[in-house]
């Protein structure tokens, strides 16, 4: 059994792809160095941390070989954060380096899995563009807490920057302790912690109340369909959405 040991970042995954491309050795599993303990005695370990690459060159080759759509698929699949998907991304990239045409072939497992994983992540990205709920703080900044399944912050950044312009805002991923800070139209992603005592603008409760009124009244009683509602807004997301709080 071949195990690739790498760091938890996209460059390490791309390193693995180049290793496969050059040696033809593919991993059965991927292990993240800091997080996963060694499990078996008879494993063929390939420690990608020992291999040094020129990051600039790697990215240049990727940009040259893959279409923008395929690059966003690689990025999306990576943000799924699943070790098994990391192995598939490595094979996908290695396949693309060898034969770019083959990346259209959905009957190849790595092509299909990378595409499906990316679709899942981008599906949640689309959902989060709607589900983020801001509240105005006393200092005029808008603050939203989210609880996504995947790490979507890097992928929703541009959407909110383009939309809210000069407004200052923060989106905080509660599960990962990550935050997107936007000040004067420039957003940065960083680790953050939020205190429980936030000071909200004095009109905040008024507008949140109006939204809840609207949300309740817009439904047609004769068409009640809570099952469909649950399918569209899973309970998982609701505790940070104003209309369900």
């Amino acid at each position: 059994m071949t195990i690739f040991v790498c760091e938890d970042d996209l460059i390490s995954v791309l390193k693995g792809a180049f290793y496969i491309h050059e040696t033809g050795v593919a991993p059965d599993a991927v292990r993240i160095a800091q997080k996963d303990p060694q499990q078996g005695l008879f494993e063929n370990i390939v420690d990608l941390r020992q291999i040094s690459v020129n990051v600039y060159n790697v990215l240049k080759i990727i940009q040259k070989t893959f279409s923008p759509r395929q690059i966003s698929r690689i990025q999306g699949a990576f943000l799924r954060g699943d070790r098994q998907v990391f192995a598939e991304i490595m094979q996908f990239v290695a396949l693309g380096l060898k034969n770019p045409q083959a990346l259209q072939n959905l009957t190849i497992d790595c092509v299909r899995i990378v595409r499906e994983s990316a679709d899942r992540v981008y599906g949640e990205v689309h959902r989060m563009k709607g589900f983020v709920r801001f509240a105005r703080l006393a200092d005029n900044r808008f603050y939203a807490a989210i609880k996504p399944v995947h790490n979507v912050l890097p992928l929703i950044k541009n959407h909110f920057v383009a939309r809210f312009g000069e407004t200052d805002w923060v989106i905080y991923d509660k599960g990962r302790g990550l935050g997107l800070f936007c000040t004067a139209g420039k957003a940065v992603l960083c680790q953050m912690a939020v205190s429980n005592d936030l000071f909200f603008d004095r009109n905040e409760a008024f507008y949140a109340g109006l939204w809840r009124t609207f949300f309740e009244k817009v439904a047609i009683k004769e068409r009640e369909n809570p099952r469909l509602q649950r399918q569209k807004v899973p309970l998982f997301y609701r505790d940070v959405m104003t209309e369900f709080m």
Partner: protein
Amino acid sequence: MKLEQKLKILTESAKYDVSCASSGSHRTRTKGGIGNAAPSGICHSWSSDGRCVSLLKILLSNKCIYNCEYCLNRSSNNIERATMTPEEIADLTINFYRRNYIEGLFLSSAVVRSPDYTMELIYRTLWLLRKEHMFSGYIHAKLIPGASDILIEKVTALADRVSSNIELPSSESLLRLAPDKSRSDVLYPIKYVQKLSEKLPVKCLKPNSMPNIRRRGISMSTQLIVGASPESDRDILRLSAYFYNKSLLKRVYYSAYVPVNHTSNLPAIQAPPLLREHRLYQADWLLRFYNFKLDEIIGDNASNLSIEFDPKTAWALRNLHLFPIDVNVADYEMLIRVPGIGIRSAQKIITARRFTKLDMNDLLKMRISLKRTKYFILLKGRYAGECPMREDILSHYLSAPREIIQQSLPFNEF
């Protein structure tokens, strides 16, 4: 009256308008302003009836001078009335938008005083949003039948989509249930906006969009009530097909009639005809995206869609001589006509079969549902279904969930 009370009344009054889309518009934020419009549309929530909440859907006023029998806001109804000012609506929209509650505004109104007066209030609201608040989010505005051309033109220039609800599919029903409106009045705004649209240059949906998704001019929609009048599905779809063929409308919405009033001219129904509404939407999709003709969707002698089967399956069962088709050679046009294969599945099949001859396992891996598809396709020269291709047998297999019966082993044959 307090703002919250007004919001309550005017949301209640607007909720029967089913239009909810915020898609199809590509508007970028103006410098110093707020908002943009995403071409794909974004749903911000789903209400307890399972409908998408994307826009602040509200009436400007529910004080109507008309007395349409199907309408909650008819002048003779004894309900609470309210009117919001354009400033109140603009402020509410901006504050909801800033909190990412909504994608934009859907503004309709009962006819207050006169069509022109109402249209002016709508225009004033849009003007405040676009010019004073520099709002570039999505706006859908209702065109009031009977309003003057200049007001229609001004509202259209500020909105992403405009609509005029036809509500009833025939002139006779309109005369009976909405005597204050005439068919020509209702259709006039749509036809007038199309004329305006034709004068505009062809524009792209996205800056680098392919020519086939370029579109011309102004996006328009309408709504038809299903079940309040005796028109058949064929009558309703004929009207929709007319609008689509003439490029008058981008979309027709169907709204299952909810009995909000009880008069002798309205049918006494227990529950809204939701399944009929669903079938009409499926048929509408076939008209718009699957290149079906109206006569193909509804059988020769039928006037209504099948309730038991979706329109594509019903068509396939009537045309079994065209099936089974070989998934590995059939063209795209035919693939999308197979029940269970949609646009995305057909595209996946066409891409994948360039590399290999597809079998059942490949289709399953690509997550193409075989539940209905297998009865209409050949894979590597073999029929994928497990029963003879006869209309009665397939109908049985495709309708109710089947009991799985363990077939007896053929001992007797030995």
